[in-house]
């Protein structure tokens, strides 16, 4: 009888991700590719760090949200929230997907026009519109969302003196049973200010009340809050119809849907706790459909979703600069992405993936950015593999707010690239130079 093949005897300790109070065990998957493109190639061509956007992911998110809402409600219109990310190429993808523009300043308004959005497809929000901006928006037929009485009076004066009409909506804030209560924007529902504003608009021949708008907050995890808000706006719409025989053409539920990022200090991962578009859609559309609004008079539902559509599509690829041991023995890793580029590190526990394979062994690590400032901490503590100088990593879900709230601080801002649907890479914003930053400065002659 021939002998059997010998395999060396092994014994392996089982360390499944035992759930603890910190959640499942740490498994940090390497991420060699972003949307099919090698991270190493991106960094070699565009430098480190580099912002990377995936057009595929953006379009997929748009498809998902449109499907979730239009399956449940006839008339749905998306409006891209410019402040979430106003890189022109990103805005244009959303406009190509059918989104209008939702802007909160004259600057954003002009950006939307430059991006080819028609005036009548712009929603003009915000508490700080100037007289000139209001006049321009009125003449363009944009929807002006009135934030306070001073704005209402100013717009009324402009329309009277210039003999023009304005299409308006009012922003309504209300108690929807969540904390914090957002009552600083718009007119309050419970104290009657919203109704007072509606009465004034309806009695003003120059102002056309087109819609009702609310924006209940940001990163709202409770779909019930949306249900209550939508019910209250629908009630207001019914009251308007009853009193003035006027049917508003839209209800704008604003934004605030949570992305899948994990908030700092959150017990569970955002991936597990964030409601789906379907859940938000069910709450909002059922509240409107079940209201007293007549079925043939149901208004268009406008959504200004920003974060939940773009966060997942953005990443930052960077490199490790150094490792050190802190006084208490913890490892610290210094990387070339700072809070100036990743503003959202202040409220998210961003996921960081090494680009290359690693042994699987992880160690408690603090991740510092490169700024010579104590606040520059990306992750105060996470279980992370031991990366050495020059190793590369990807920070995921960075698409929302980081390219609008970023700071030109201590250093300049890096390249931004877009991976199109055919996996071709395009530079959509070049890295800043000293000349860019100094271009707006003047030196008085005596300092010359």
């Amino acid at each position, binding site marked *: 009888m021939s*002998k059997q093949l010998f395999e*060396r*005897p*092994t*014994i*392996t300790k*089982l360390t499944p991700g035992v759930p603890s109070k910190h959640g499942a065990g740490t498994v940090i998957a390497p991420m060699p590719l972003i949307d099919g493109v090698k991270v190493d190639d991106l960094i070699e061509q565009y430098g480190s760090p580099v912002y990377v956007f995936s057009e595929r992911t953006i379009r997929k998110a748009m498809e998902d949200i449109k499907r979730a809402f239009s399956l449940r409600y006839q008339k749905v219109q998306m409006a891209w929230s410019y402040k979430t990310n106003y890189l022109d190429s990103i805005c244009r993808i959303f406009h190509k997907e059918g989104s209008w523009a939702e802007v909160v300043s004259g600057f954003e308004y002009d950006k939307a026009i430059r991006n080819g959005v028609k005036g009548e497809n712009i929603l003009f929000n915000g508490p700080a519109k100037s007289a000139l901006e209001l006049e321009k928006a009125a003449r363009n037929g944009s929807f002006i969302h009135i934030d306070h009485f001073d704005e209402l009076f100013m717009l009324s004066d402009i329309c009277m003196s210039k003999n023009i009409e304005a299409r308006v909506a009012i922003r309504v804030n209300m108690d929807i049973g969540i904390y914090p209560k957002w009552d600083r924007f718009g007119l309050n529902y419970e104290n009657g200010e919203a109704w007072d504003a509606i009465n004034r608009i309806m009695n003003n021949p120059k102002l056309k009340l087109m819609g009702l708008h609310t924006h209940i907050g940001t990163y709202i995890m409770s779909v019930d809050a949306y249900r209550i808000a939508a019910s209250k706006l629908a009630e207001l719409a019914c009251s308007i119809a009853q009193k003035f025989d006027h049917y508003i053409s839209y209800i704008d539920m604003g934004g605030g849907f949570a992305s899948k990022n994990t908030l700092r200090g959150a017990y569970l991962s955002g991936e597990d706790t964030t409601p789906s578009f379907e859940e938000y859609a069910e709450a909002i559309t059922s509240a409107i459909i079940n209201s007293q609004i007549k079925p043939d008079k149901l208004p268009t539902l406008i959504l200004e979703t920003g974060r939940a559509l773009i966060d997942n599509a953005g990443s930052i690829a960077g490199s490790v600069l150094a490792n050190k041991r802190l006084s208490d023995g913890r490892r610290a890793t210094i990387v070339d992405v700072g809070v100036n580029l990743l503003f959202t590190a202040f409220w998210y526990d961003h996921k960081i993936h090494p680009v290359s394979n690693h042994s699987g062994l992880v160690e408690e690590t603090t991740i510092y950015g490169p700024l010579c400032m104590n606040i520059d901490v990306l992750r105060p503590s996470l279980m992370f593999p031991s990366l050495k100088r020059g190793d590369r990593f990807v920070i995921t879900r960075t698409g929302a707010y980081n390219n609008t709230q970023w700071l030109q601080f201590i250093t300049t801002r890096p390249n931004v690239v877009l991976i199109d649907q055919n996996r071709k890479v395009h530079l959509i914003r070049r890295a800043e130079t000293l000349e860019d930053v100094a271009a707006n400065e003047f030196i008085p002659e005596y300092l010359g």
Partner: protein
Amino acid sequence: MLIKGNIALSDNGFVFNPSSGDSFTMNHTGKEVIMLIKEGKTINEIIELMLEKYDVDKMTLERYLLDFMNDLSSNSLLEE
């Protein structure tokens, strides 16, 4: 050389150490060795038995057995 008395061994190579809460899995040769130890065989007896059964030279076998013993010991599975 003895496996600790409270260590639970299953037929399919699963090992549980109730005093530490650790559990382990073994490949078939690992399981065979540990069963032979449990039967009270000495290292030399184990080597002879396995040389007969497997296509392996003595030096390689001894080297891997030693490694395996070290693993058992460092995982606190052997009596001191």
